[in-house]
């Protein structure tokens, strides 16, 4: 495989190609015949009119190509090499020292593969759910893919910021146009929260670029590597800059007091929107901590008080998310709040700062993408049949839809973190790693696993198992082949990562170790200098 890949020069073009393919696909969708030209008024049900095939097939095929192109990275990536791989560098705005620089490490690799695979499934998941304005919907999905991939691979802070904002607009429209009843409120809240968080990061990025400016010409430099190696700011400035980055990423994660946009956006978004939001976009926040906020300002991030506050918020998030999930009557909202809890584990692992806990965090990021994505898919499938997400509207449907029931049970167990599923490995590593540095917090967080079992098992009991007492539940059709095609890869991922996560861990180990060492040495040096 590697010979084949190197024979086509794979690593030299793969990252720009991954960014370009979805954009070209979006253009292709716009060129396909539109309903207006075929005499159907916009906003009418395009599936019923037999017009919606073009966009969804183009989107599916384009994203399939995208996935196939990206999967080569799995083999071509060399875990033993400690620099950026598949790097691509091009001048973009020379007067401002802005370059189009992309490259990946082990963390970005796994995030990119997660993104490309989830996006293919998302198109399948919207196959019949999105019935109007399919051109716009699938174009936006494709542009969204480029934006998210861009964030994971950007090595220039200007590019990072641009990509960070670019993914906001498609999601705003996806939630706002194809969402549920309170979609407008949810989409505006999502947009304003994220933008409010990220604009201060803009000032911080400009500040850093100017601090790295060429002394002679005064041209700033936004290269991540260059800033990481050369820029040293005063402790006070570091604290403010870290604060700006923290705000941007904490809103995205979302950490406890900044999480209020999440239940609204996740619940109101169409199925694929929720999957993408939970499965990928939340990870952009934790990825930002790993890539930018902590390595750039270790002395600020690892200051005793800052670290205590962030760890405290992470643990509050873990418990709060779990407790709120317990009392949700709406299954989608339950899953949305459980995200707050899971992402709290990620933050705990990152800021506990041991190799194990960071690796655990990375695994939780992937696992949460798969499990929560799968849960949202399943909720979407049952919603398409019954048009309600209320837990109490169901009951005993395991007899009616056995396939659905089996899959929901497996996915729920993985989300709880039962041994043998992926959820167990990640959370276990986080707890194990953080126990070494923060035993008390780790013990408190471990209780959340029990709550997770409580809220999910209780929910599936009420949905699947109690008495089948509602007549409208007696004739629900079971999953069809398309829906099985979505779920099978996800279930395979759940079991594979639960039983044999070593290949994934091996690819991320180098990056995680470097992250911990780098932060420890720099934070230590900063203390010694003081």
């Amino acid at each position, binding site marked *: 495989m590697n010979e084949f890949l190197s024979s086509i020069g794979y690593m030299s073009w793969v990252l720009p190609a991954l960014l370009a393919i979805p954009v070209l696909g979006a253009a292709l969708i716009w060129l396909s015949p539109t309903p207006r030209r075929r005499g159907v008024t916009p906003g009418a049900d395009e599936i019923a009119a037999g017009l919606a095939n073009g966009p969804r097939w183009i989107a599916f095929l384009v994203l399939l190509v995208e996935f196939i192109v990206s999967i080569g990275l799995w083999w071509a990536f060399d875990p033993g090499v400690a620099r950026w791989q598949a790097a691509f560098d091009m001048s973009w705005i*020379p007067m*401002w020292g802005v370059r189009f620089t992309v490259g990946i490490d082990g963390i970005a690799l796994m995030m990119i593969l997660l993104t490309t695979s989830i996006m293919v499934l998302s198109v399948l998941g919207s196959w019949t759910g999105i019935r109007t304005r399919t051109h716009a919907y699938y174009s936006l999905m494709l542009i969204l893919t480029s934006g998210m991939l861009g964030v994971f691979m950007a090595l220039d802070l200007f590019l990072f910021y641009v990509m960070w904002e670019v993914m906001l*607009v498609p999601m705003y429209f996806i939630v706002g*146009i194809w969402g549920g009843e309170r979609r*407008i409120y949810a*989409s505006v809240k999502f*947009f304003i929260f994220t933008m409010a968080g990220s*604009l*201060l990061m803009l*000032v911080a990025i400009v500040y850093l670029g100017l601090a790295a400016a060429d002394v002679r010409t005064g041209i700033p430099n936004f290269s991540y590597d260059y800033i990481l190696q050369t820029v040293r700011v005063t402790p006070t400035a570091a604290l403010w800059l870290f604060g700006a980055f923290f705000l941007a990423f904490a809103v995205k994660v979302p950490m406890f007091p900044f999480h209020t946009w999440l239940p609204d956006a996740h619940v109101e978004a169409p199925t694929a929107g929720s999957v993408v939001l939970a499965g990928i976009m939340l990870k952009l926040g934790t990825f930002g901590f790993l890539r930018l906020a902590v390595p750039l300002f270790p002395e600020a991030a690892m200051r005793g008080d800052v670290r205590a506050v962030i760890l405290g918020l992470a643990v509050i998030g873990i418990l709060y998310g779990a407790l709120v999930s317990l009392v949700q009557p709406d299954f989608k909202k339950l899953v949305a709040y459980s995200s707050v809890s899971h992402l709290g584990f990620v933050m705990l692992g990152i800021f506990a700062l041991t190799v194990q806990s960071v690796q655990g965090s990375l695994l939780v990021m992937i696992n949460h993408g798969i499990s929560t994505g799968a849960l949202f898919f399943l909720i979407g499938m049952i919603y398409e049949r019954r048009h309600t997400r209320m837990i109490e509207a169901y009951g005993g449907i395991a007899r009616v839809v056995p396939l659905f029931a089996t899959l929901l049970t497996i996915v729920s167990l993985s989300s709880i973190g039962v041994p043998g599923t992926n959820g167990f490995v990640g959370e276990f590593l986080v707890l194990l790693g953080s126990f070494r540095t923060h035993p008390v917090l780790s013990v408190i967080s471990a209780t959340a696993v029990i709550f997770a079992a409580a809220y999910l098992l209780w929910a599936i009991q009420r949905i699947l198992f109690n008495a089948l007492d509602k007549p409208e539940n007696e004739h629900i059709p079971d999953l069809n082949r398309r829906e099985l095609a979505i779920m099978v890869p996800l279930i395979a991922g759940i079991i594979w990562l639960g039983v044999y996560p070593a290949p994934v861990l091996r690819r991320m180990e180098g990056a995680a170790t470097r992250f911990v060492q780098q932060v420890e040495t720099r934070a230590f040096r900063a203390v010694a200098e003081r």
Partner: protein
Amino acid sequence: METLDLKVPLQLTIALGPDLLLMGGAMILLLWSAWRPDSAKHQRAVAIGSIVLTIITGTVTWWYLIKGYTAAPGPIAVDNFRWMADLVILIGTGFAIALARDDNDRQGIGVAESHVLILLASSGMMLLAAARDLMIVFLAVELMSVAVYALAGLNRRSIRAAEGALKYFLLGAFSSAFLLYGIALIYGATGSTNLALVAERMSATALGTSPLMLAGIAFLLVGFGFKVATVPFHMWAPDVYDGAPSAITAYMAATVKAAAFVAFIRVWLEAFPDVYTVWHSAVAGLAIATMIVGNAIGLVQRNLKRLLAYSSIGHAGYLLVAIAPATLRGGSAMLFYLFVYTLSTFGAFAVIVAMTRPGRGTVMVDELSGLWAVRPWLAVAMAVIMLSLLGFPIFGGAGFVAKWYVLQAALQARMPQTALAVVLVLTTVVSAGYYLYVILVMFMRPPNPDAAALPATPPLTRLVLAVTVIGILVIGVYPNWFQRVASKGVPRRESISAIGMPPTPAASAR
């Protein structure tokens, strides 16, 4: 590169070439427009003639820019900054006449002279961009303002237009008085109205703390504050913008503002560089107040023209941020921002012209309901323009690049304006509230079934919309060429050091 001696009449004429061309052409067009009685056909013909004149003047100005004339400090400036400001003004003029032609048609206004008035105002603006003497500044401001007063009241049948025009005239005259009084005080303190001489005498005689001088600077600031509509001198703007015909509103919001800002920064950088510490806090305070108040009040507007009026007040605040560090980079950033702002504003008003039903002067935001279903391209164009005004990358294209330029200029100075930069981004979040509201109404609300069908978008309006939107998107991805041009456009090329490095507060305190 050729140095002109402004004392020689012929060379002075060369230095004023584009201005004279536009003024002379405008006179001929004035005769032509008065030749025949008002009619829709005549109005359209004069509009085309005016656009042709604008394009010719633009080409000549472009030629001057390439040729790179310079001149010794005199009453008028001969530098890249002037030519580029002229180009921004002329682009705005062309857009304004194109929109005015379509808008006059739809609203049944048959006054052919309206286009000539725009040309006359523009020639005043070009003179303003060239002025290096406070007397010429005043002369140019008046030339520009008198024409715009008449334009504001163009729609004689509308009560609101009359109210707006009267308000504009009274407050404009008021602000001119401030300007003139300030000039008189500065003349009293320094004995000159020439910008270079004022700066020289101020630094030679340590006039920085003289009350006469301070009062002069303060009055001048108030005068300019009125012209560019900064808070607290903004009260006239929403009423005037709402009452005037849409094309004229766009012209006032973008081009008049651009010209006033160009003169503002030239006076400040050339005449008062040494008393930076004296005026800095006043300008910074104006900037903060303008950004906060403009954007906050924008949130509650439901009339699209008023919404854009407050948005333009907010943008005046962002532009003041570029003036505050008093650097050459700030000057380039401001030019670039003005150019992008001109594109976005005319794009937005092109949509308003397309959306205004005959006999109505204004558009409520709710009338855009479900526009995406009715006119998809118009809705997409408006969304791009709104995101550009918001300063959003890629989808808002040039708006983001311009904002980045201003942020960079604010932070890259001897005294970094970090507080202003932070207020700028925070108020940008506030402004998202109303820009997003427009997008939301267009895309996420159903169309109003009772609304009468929209008339087809007239051709010139379409052209303006296409040019602005494509410009915004292209500059957003590939700003290099425009940046390079803008970075050469800095006022007072011959003495860069004096402006680039304002004294630090510690140094002047000693």
